[in-house]
Structures are given as structure tokens and as C-alpha cells.
């Protein structure tokens, strides 16, 4: 059976070139970068080369790049570091959005329990924050604005340049979770006035368990792990050199191929969206234009997402859903609810997320099978029966 991976927003495959770049650091160059002998210095040189390459791609300086274990750690670190800067002036307020990743949202929930006040901005029906809302939410005591660059579920891209400019004008620190954006979109921390940025290598064909926190110079970054002098004394622990080298190779590859990849991704995306919209009572979630090139998020009324995912898996298609059954909670995804979907529609959500390893033939296979599966599940759904009946009586009137 053919197997198709369209869950690249969850994680991606390591590209062959990235793997090749990493291999020497598994066996040959195994020194500890903190050691002064040649073994250590070779590793250290590779580490600093990776730091510089990543910095240049983001428009940052080397010393503004801190290696972490990934997006979640960077998010946690950035938020707490920004608050400790604000604490010196008694700032206890944070502005964020209702559609953040749990790596931000759950940190904020805990901070609320610890006495911070958080304003969660609404998004419009396409999943985009309104600048006026942000403007009026920022207060004298706002320590941080944290708003994601692009959403992992519905792919909507926020007006980051405008948000960054507004925060700078108001003198408020700005963090963005750019985990889904980096590698897909050109991200520049200077142009966008970003103070803190999180990224994660495994979302752009790099290895898992490695990421970056960008922290603008001039900001006192509170240390995260106390111990040795690694990462300018802010995050102790011997570095994962192979993974860091892989991350840098992956980012470079993503940047070099961004234009070509974007064209190919958008073509496949458009094909899927056009065809899936032909399914009755289906809807595209997220902004039709301001969206990640590989994201396709849909709801199909009358069916439930987990049943849809497992049916797709049985024909070899790996996707994801924001239904309650897949999230392990009673409620469907907070993102789908934030864009105003009722529970019963949000339960029937499906996310397909593409990478440049996907092909147009795969899209054909997905479309063909998805249509069959949606019909099969609807044929046995009492909810669909009701919807059909309503449509018929309305049609008769």
C-alpha cells in the first residue's frame, strides 16, 4: 500500500542533505565543545559556524542565538525571561492571543495562577489578530506581547511586522512563536522588531529536540539552566552538536529553496483546497491568502475527526485533526473554537500539512480517498441524516 505523509506541521522527515551534514558529528567529531584540545575545538567551531549561519538567515547576530531543545523550551524561556525584565518595573500584564500553541498558552495559564494578568486577544473568523485590539490591550504595566507568527492548526499568518512595530513604539517586549513560520516564510527579526523568537528544527526537515531562542542584544536574558558556561552562561549542558549542525543545514536548505518550495507547495495546496471545497458542507479554516503554503485545514459537517483520521490511515494517509477525540479532552481544539466554529462542526476537522517531499500524484490519491471516506462516514451518521433532512425541507419551501 502507498503511504503518504501529510502531517508535516507535526514534524517532518530529516532531509538526506541534513543527515549527511550531521553524520560526522555522530562519530568523528565527538569532542566536547568546551574542551580546549583539538577534538573539542573542532566541535566548538562547528557549533559557532551553525550559530552564525542561523543568525544570518534570521537577520540576527551570532550572540543573539541560544540553542535549546526545541520550540516548547524556547517559548517557556522567552516568556519567563521577558517577565523577569518587566518585574524590575512591577509589570504584571501579558498580552497574547486565543490561538497560541500550548507551549505558550499553558505557560500563561500557570502565570495567571501566580498572579499575572493575561489578555487573550480574539482573532477574526480567519484566525487573525486585529491590530486595534492589540493597541487597546497594551497597558502601562504590560511586560510582554507574545503572538505566534503562524498558526499550527489553521495556518493563518499574523501581521507580525505591524505587531512588532506597534510593540516597539509602545516600548513593550515582543515575543513570537515562529515555530511554524521559520523555514516556510522569510523571517527577519530586525525588520519585524522582534525581541524574542522561538523556532524548532524538526518543522523544517531538521532533527527533533533542537531549536533556537533568539534574544535581542541589550535584553538581560535570565538563565534557564544553571551550571556550566554553555550558551553564554544562560543554558548549561553539553551541546547537542550533531543536532545543532543539522538544524543549521536544514535552515540553510529551507532558505535556499524557499521560493521554489513555496511555488510547489501552493500548487498542491490550491489543488487540495479546490477539490475539497467541492465536497458539500465542507469549509476551509483559516485565511485563504494569509496562510502557510503547506497548510490545508478543513471541517466536514456530520462526521467526527478521529474516525476520519483512522480511515485515512487505513489507506496509508497520515494526517491530523483538532477534534476532541484526538486531543484527548472533551472539547475540540481551542483554535477552531476561537475562529467561531460551533463544537459540532469543529469535531469534524482535518489538517493536511504538506512539505516539499509531497507530490501532486499524492494529492490526487488523497482527494480520491478522502471523498470516499467522507461519504462513507456520512452515510452512517445520524447528524448527517438530520442535516440532509433540513436541507430538503428548506429546499421545498
Amino acid at each position: 500500500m502507498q503511504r503518504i505523509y501529510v502531517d508535516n506541521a507535526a514534524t517532518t522527515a530529516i532531509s538526506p542533505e541534513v543527515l549527511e551534514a550531521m553524520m560526522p558529528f555522530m562519530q568523528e567529531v565527538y569532542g566536547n565543545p568546551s574542551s580546549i584540545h583539538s577534538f573539542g575545538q573542532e566541535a566548538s567551531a562547528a557549533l559557532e559556524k551553525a550559530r552564525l549561519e542561523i543568525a544570518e538567515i534570521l537577520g540576527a547576530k551570532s550572540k543573539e542565538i541560544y540553542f535549546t531543545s526545541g520550540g516548547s523550551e524556547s517559548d517557556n524561556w522567552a516568556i519567563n525571561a521577558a517577565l523577569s525584565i518587566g518585574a524590575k518595573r512591577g509589570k504584571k500584564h501579558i498580552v497574547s492571543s486565543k490561538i497560541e500553541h500550548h507551549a505558550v498558552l499553558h505557560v500563561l495559564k500557570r502565570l495567571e495562577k501566580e498572579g499575572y494578568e493575561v489578555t487573550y486577544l480574539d482573532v477574526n473568523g480567519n484566525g487573525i489578530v486585529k491590530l486595534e485590539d492589540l493597541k487597546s490591550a497594551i497597558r502601562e504595566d504590560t511586560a510582554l506581547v507574545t503572538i505566534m507568527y503562524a498558526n499550527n492548526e489553521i495556518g493563518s499568518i499574523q501581521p507580525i511586522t505591524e505587531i512588532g512595530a506597534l510593540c516597539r513604539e509602545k516600548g513593550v517586549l515582543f515575543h513570537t512563536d515562529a515555530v511554524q513560520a521559520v523555514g516556510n516564510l522569510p523571517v527577519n527579526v530586525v525588520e519585524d522588531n522582534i525581541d524574542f523568537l522561538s523556532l524548532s528544527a524538526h518543522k523544517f526537515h531538521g532533527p527533533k529536540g533542537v531549536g533556537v531562542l533568539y534574544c535581542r542584544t541589550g535584553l538581560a536574558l535570565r538563565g534557564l539552566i544553571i551550571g556550566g558556561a554553555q550558551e553564554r552562561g544562560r543554558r548549561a549542558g553539553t551541546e547537542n552538536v550533531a543536532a545543532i549542525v543539522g538544524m543549521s543545514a536544514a535552515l540553510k536548505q529551507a532558505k535556499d529553496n524557499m521560493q521554489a518550495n513555496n511555488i510547489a507547495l501552493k500548487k498542491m495546496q490550491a489543488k487540495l483546497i479546490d477539490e475539497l471545497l467541492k465536497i458539500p458542507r465542507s469549509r476551509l479554516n483559516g485565511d485563504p491568502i494569509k496562510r502557510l503554503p503547506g497548510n490545508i485545514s478543513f471541517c466536514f459537517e456530520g462526521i467526527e475527526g478521529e474516525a476520519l483520521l483512522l480511515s485515512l490511515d487505513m489507506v496509508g494517509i497520515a494526517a491530523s485533526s483538532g477534534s476532541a477525540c484526538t486531543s484527548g479532552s472533551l472539547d475540540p481544539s481551542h483554535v477552531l473554537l476561537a475562529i467561531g466554529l460551533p463544537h459540532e462542526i469543529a469535531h469534524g476537522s482535518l489538517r493536511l500539512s504538506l512539505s516539499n517531499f509531497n507530490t501532486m500524484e499524492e494529492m490526487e490519491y488523497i482527494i480520491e480517498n478522502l471523498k470516499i471516506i467522507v461519504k462513507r462516514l456520512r452515510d452512517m451518521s445520524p447528524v448527517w441524516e438530520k442535516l440532509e433532512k433540513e436541507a430538503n425541507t428548506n429546499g421545498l419551501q
Partner: protein
Amino acid sequence: MAYSKKVMDHFANPRNVGKMDNADGVGEVGNAKCGDIMKVYLKVDDDIITDVKFNTFGCASAIATSSIATEMIKGKNLQEALSLSNKAVVDALDGLPPSKVHCSVLAEEAVKAAISDYYIRNNIAHDSELFKCTGCCNSCDNL
């Protein structure tokens, strides 16, 4: 979370799936807001369930529990069908993940709701205590 082979089999090849035009009893439980609705149709002949069909909106385990529940009551008399417990449904499926056990409760309730409908339609005296909702599915809110 992993489903047993039995669950996957009943999800992939549900038994007795469909609707019934001249059913003698129909029961619907669940709530679309929560993500599962089950509808069971019965054909009853001389106290025996001669045919049964179901329609389900919900996750794989909701479909599998309704499928196996219909299999377990087909050919049985109403008293036997009424004694079907959610635990029996779970066991017959070789277990369910803890977060999915409520689906088996829903399957039990769907069967009972259909039998109750049959009793009411035919003015047959019955102990309404037996059909008390566990409150699990909130479908009562919709009535």
C-alpha cells in the same frame, strides 16, 4: 492510545450499519456538541429482536461499540437485550482506552432507548427505572 484489533475491525467493517424504514423501536442518544450520537433501530417479532440497524456519528470507538452492541442483541429477546451492559460491550471488544469507555455506555443506552421506544409505542408496561439515563451523554438536554 491504541485500539484493539477487535475495535479496528468493527470500525473498518461495522456490522448492521444502516437505517430501517419500518422500525418497531428507534432510540437515539448522545449529543453532537460532545462528539457522539448513536441511533439504533429495532425490528421486534414476538419479543425477539429479529433485525437491528445503527447509525453513529463519532469516533472509531463510538462506531465500534455500536456495531458490536447490535451484534450482541440481534436474535435475543428484549429482556436479554435489556441486560446488555457497557462492561459486556467493552469486554467483547477486548477493551477500550479509558477515555473511550463512555462510548460503551452510550451504546448500552442507545439499545435501551430503542427498546423503551418499542414499549411505549406498543403500550407495554415496563419499569422506567431501567431506562434511566446515566447523564453521561447529555442527550436529555436535547429533549
